[in-house]
């Protein structure tokens, strides 16, 4: 019984701390939607927008394509312009969402997978909720330059064929990038998603001085990769690092205990 009460208490504190965390402003949950379905199927998932502020907001709903460049940066394109786009399959009941003060809205995102869709390729796009400015946002000042700041949420949309279950990343390279203008040294870890699902991972890099045994542990970097994607994860080494070092890169994939480890000796 006491354990039960303990559990209730823990839950209570946890929930109350969470609610205070998201006490103000506008929130969206989740931030990524993963659809699973075969060609010809229609699948739906909800996303919740909450407004805990005292202002009313209106959002326009729109889609774009995107791909990730090798440096990890997402680049947006017109909806339907990329090969792996599913923007045309995505729909919502509403083309704009009105979110009055202190309210929540559940928006159902529907994925209509066409009959001729691939049964092996993961497709993606991004659904945007873009704030529409109101008349009263305009400044009262009469002269000068005025900027009206609006904001926008991007919701990742992924559609994975149900038979795709291979979760795998591969370390393909470890190389030093030296910049002639500065004496700072960077190390790029080349990673490829050789599986067939979207893969989240944390990349860690550790440098060990081969003479003194001294360890340098760098801050881990998070990545998320589409199947077939290649990415260079760049770590900045501390300034003034000199000598012979053993670099060990560890890629920890989310949702599995599977690891990828790469090793290379660097003469700096």
């Amino acid at each position, binding site marked *: 019984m*006491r354990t039960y009460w303990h559990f209730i208490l823990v839950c209570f504190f946890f929930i109350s701390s969470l609610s205070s965390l998201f006490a103000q402003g506008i929130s969206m949950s989740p931030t990524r939607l993963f659809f699973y379905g075969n060609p010809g199927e229609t699948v739906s998932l909800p996303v919740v927008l909450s407004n805990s502020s005292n202002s009313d907001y209106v959002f326009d709903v729109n889609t774009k394509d995107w791909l990730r460049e090798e440096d990890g940066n997402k680049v947006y394109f017109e909806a339907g312009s990329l090969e792996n786009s599913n923007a045309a399959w995505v729909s919502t009941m509403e083309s704009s969402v009105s979110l009055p003060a202190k309210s929540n809205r559940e928006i159902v995102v529907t994925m209509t997978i066409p009959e001729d869709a691939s049964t092996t390729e993961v497709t993606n796009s991004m659904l945007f909720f873009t704030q529409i400015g109101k008349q009263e946002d*305009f400044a009262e000042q009469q002269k*000068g330059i005025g900027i009206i700041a*609006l904001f926008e949420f991007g919701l990742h949309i992924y559609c994975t064929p149900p038979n795709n279950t291979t979760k795998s990343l591969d370390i393909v390279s470890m190389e030093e990038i030296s910049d002639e203008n500065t004496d700072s040294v960077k190390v790029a870890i080349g990673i490829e998603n050789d599986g067939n699902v979207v893969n989240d991972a944390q990349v860690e890099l550790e440098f060990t001085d081969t003479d003194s045994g001294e360890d340098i542990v760098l801050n881990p970097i998070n990545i998320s990769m589409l199947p077939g994607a290649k990415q260079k994860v760049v770590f900045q080494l501390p300034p003034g690092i000199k000598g012979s070092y053993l670099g060990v890169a560890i890629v920890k994939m989310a949702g599995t205990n599977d690891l990828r480890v790469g090793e290379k000796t660097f003469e700096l």
Partner: protein
Amino acid sequence: MQTTLKYCRKKRATNIVAALTMLLFGVSKVAAQKATTTINLILADVIAIEPGSAAKGGTVDFHYENASDYNSEQTATIPNSLIITFTHPFDLKVKANGAYFENGAHQIPVNVLTISRNETSKITGNSKPIVLSTEDQVLVSGADSGSKLNLDLDYTIPQAKSSSPDMLGKPEGKYTQKVTYTVSAL
């Protein structure tokens, strides 16, 4: 003598209470060790934005009144431009909704403005100053997750721009444009 006794009783009472409390905690601890409970923490994947100070109702103003205004760099630092809570790593992009700050038919190109992260920001990740355009540009990439991370922004109009025909010789008035900040998961 009476008072000492009273004091002793009081002290004993306190001791008993203390002992009982300890016992209670002790027992509950023992109970907790015996029982097995699986506690699943299901963490929601959430992003929250507070428009923050939102710069006096969502706007940032630059004043150009006299010659020295045009011949100097102007920077407006907006603390807490956005306050972001994110349970996953994220990035932040910025774009102008139009190519010009507009005042009726009169226009000033948006590229007179540079936006950069002020060092006082709690939002981590890579960031470099960007010259505003209608293209999505990365303001902060690979930022770590966190709660109530403030982003303090510097809006700068360099002297090279304010003393150029982009701005010089334009009719007096209020030139405005909307700027959209986009947040998305990594």
